[in-house]
């Protein structure tokens, strides 16, 4: 009965294909059709510019608090690009670009951040869950969806997103463990953006990587340069293909950076340096990808300028639409909608009381 080491094969890899200088490892370059490459580029630019516009709307008091995504465009778009419409996505609250890619309207984003429940779309064919704010809770939902897909013998997959902070929550570990036990077709994307509000990645866990958390549950884990869209796409595609083939779950750690505040209610100057932020600016995912596309001969400065104009107009259109909807839709009675399939009698009574109250205010013309 000796004391000896148990050999546990490490399945944790790291992947980088297009480095921060825009240099490409040709041996690893994924085979992505030109059309898709350009579509991804457009989605990255749209995500960035829309984020900037949301920030200005927030600063002007036209919408409420929101969580900016700037810097994480590659990390989320590369992950969702290989998904099909029949696949499901369970986002956290920092995947706006991925949600737009999957079909959410910018108007919905503005409405939700503007405090209107109407921003949560009710489209029957839409397979993405609403934004999940309670950290890591959504991992288990994706797992459950994946289990059900397997039960129904579909070759669809579910993808969950969370951040580096989320890996500390029990739900994350339970999700990974279940995924391993059931060999469920779930892909868990951890956007490691280095900060959970003010707590740096180094204080979140002693583990060298977040990808290695997968090891304990015996599922593959891979660390990817999250600002390299080719690497994110390649890792995601590989994991999705494996899941579709019945080979189970994968944890992908996208190493990226939260360029902005946690939410607009946060002031990062209290806990991190400009020096650190500036260092990450040099690793911008969009600049790097643009260089790649220009080198490939399918993009030019002129085309970028046209695209920027085009995106700007699209965003302006969405802002106009959303603000017009907000002006129209201030129907307070609607807050009783969707609480239940059928409103229980006592709640219905409360709805009626409220209706009377509104009518009375209408007569009096004020709230006092």
């Amino acid at each position, binding site marked *: 009965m000796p004391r000896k080491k148990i050999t546990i094969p490490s399945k944790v890899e790291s992947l980088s294909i297009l480095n921060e200088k825009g240099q490409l490892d040709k041996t690893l370059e994924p085979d992505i059709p030109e059309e898709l490459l350009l579509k991804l580029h457009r989605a990255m630019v749209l995500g960035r510019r829309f984020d900037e516009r949301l920030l200005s709307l927030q600063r002007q008091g036209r919408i*409420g*608090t*929101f969580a900016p995504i700037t810097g994480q465009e590659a990390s989320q778009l590369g992950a969702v690009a290989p998904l099909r419409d029949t696949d499901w996505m369970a986002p956290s*609250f920092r995947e706006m670009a991925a949600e737009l890619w999957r079909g959410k309207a910018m108007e919905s984003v503005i409405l*939700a951040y*503007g*405090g*209107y*429940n109407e*921003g949560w779309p009710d489209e029957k064919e839409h397979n993405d869950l609403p*934004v999940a*704010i*309670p*950290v890591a809770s959504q991992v288990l939902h994706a797992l459950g969806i994946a289990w059900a897909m397997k039960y129904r013998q579909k070759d669809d997959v579910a993808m969950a997103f969370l951040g580096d*902070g*989320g890996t*500390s*929550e*029990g*739900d994350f570990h339970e999700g990974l463990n279940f995924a391993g036990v059931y060999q469920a077709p779930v892909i868990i994307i951890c956007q490691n953006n280095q900060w*959970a*509000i*003010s*707590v740096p990645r180094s*204080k*979140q*866990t002693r583990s060298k990587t977040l990808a290695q958390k997968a090891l304990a549950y015996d599922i593959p884990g891979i660390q990817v340069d999250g600002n390299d869209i080719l690497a994110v796409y390649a890792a995601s595609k590989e994991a999705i293909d494996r899941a579709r083939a019945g080979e189970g779950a994968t944890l992908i750690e996208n190493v990226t950076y939260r360029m902005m505040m946690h*939410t607009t*209610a*946060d002031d990062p100057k*209290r*806990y991190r340096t400009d020096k650190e932020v500036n260092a990450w600016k040099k690793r911008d995912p969009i600049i790097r990808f643009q260089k790649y596309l220009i080198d490939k001969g399918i993009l030019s400065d002129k085309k970028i300028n046209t695209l920027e104009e085009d995106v700007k107009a699209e965003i302006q259109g969405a802002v106009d639409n959303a603000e017009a909807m*907000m002006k129209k839709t*201030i129907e*307070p009675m*609607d*807050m*009783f909608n969707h*609480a239940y399939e059928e409103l*229980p009698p*006592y*709640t219905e009574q*409360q*709805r009626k009381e*409220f209706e009377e*109250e509104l009518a*009375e*205010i209408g007569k009096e013309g004020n*709230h*006092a």
Partner: protein
Amino acid sequence: MPKVTMVQALNMALRQEMEKDDRVIILGEDVGLDGGVFRVTDGLVQEFGEDRSVDTPLAESGIVGMSIGMALYGLRPVCEIQFSGFSYHNFHQIENHAARLRWRSQGRFQVPMVLRTPYGGGVRALEHHSESRETFWSHIPGLKMVIPSGPRNARALLVSAIRDPDPVIFYEGKAIYRAFREEVPEEEETMPIGQSQRVKEGKDLTMISYGAMMRPTLQAAETLQEKDGIETDVIDLLTISPMDDTLFVESVQKTGRALVVHEAPRTLGPGAEIVSRLVEKAFYYLEAPVARVTGFDIIIPLFSRENAYLPNVHRILRAARKVMSS
């Protein structure tokens, strides 16, 4: 006496207790360098170090479970759960352990911890940031549930909560964190947990509320006095559990009429308990049905409609006039 906000008053309570007692430890997400997302723990890490103001990984159940262990070993942990909407993650640690370790160990152990957490609507926040779920906690035997209504009582009650031998859930109304200032004495001040307070004396109508809803309640009381000549007796509960009914029962025995205000949903909200106590102890004095002005039995909507959901002065006045005319 300096005039301070509730955030500053809470900070003062923590600082003074930490100075006095090295068993007092603060822990939670972003409570260190960031000073908490509402800045309640601002400056404490600089003054007392990282062992006294502990930034934890992001895990509510972890924070509360760890606090229980610290308390069992003789410390006085004051943990912060960033928003009460995330405290359900740690619910089982409170229900299954914090609230019953004294009982489970037949008195051998105690869990003198405080769980501070912001609650309530009115600050245009995101989903899960505006609920008022005090019923969850006040339904648990072995646990105390405190909700201050302003800077001065917040400071005094937090000091008492830290010194209390039993676990205390301490709800802080986001809407009143910075809404107004009060004079708070530098010197030590405590308030007994489990005691309500009369904040306005009157003979016609008893109004019972607590927390952030005390403001619209008091505003309504003023209007009733000025416009309707109705003199209200206003009771601030301060502690939800164990609930002190002496003042409001005595008050209703005098006025014969009562109105309860809270932003929590109506069904099984604290108002249900208040009305039950009145039925038990003041039934023969009642001259009109007791009214409840509360949040509706639905999930609080996103912020464009939160003012329609939350009780306001208008709604309180409407109910008060109805009680007075029946």
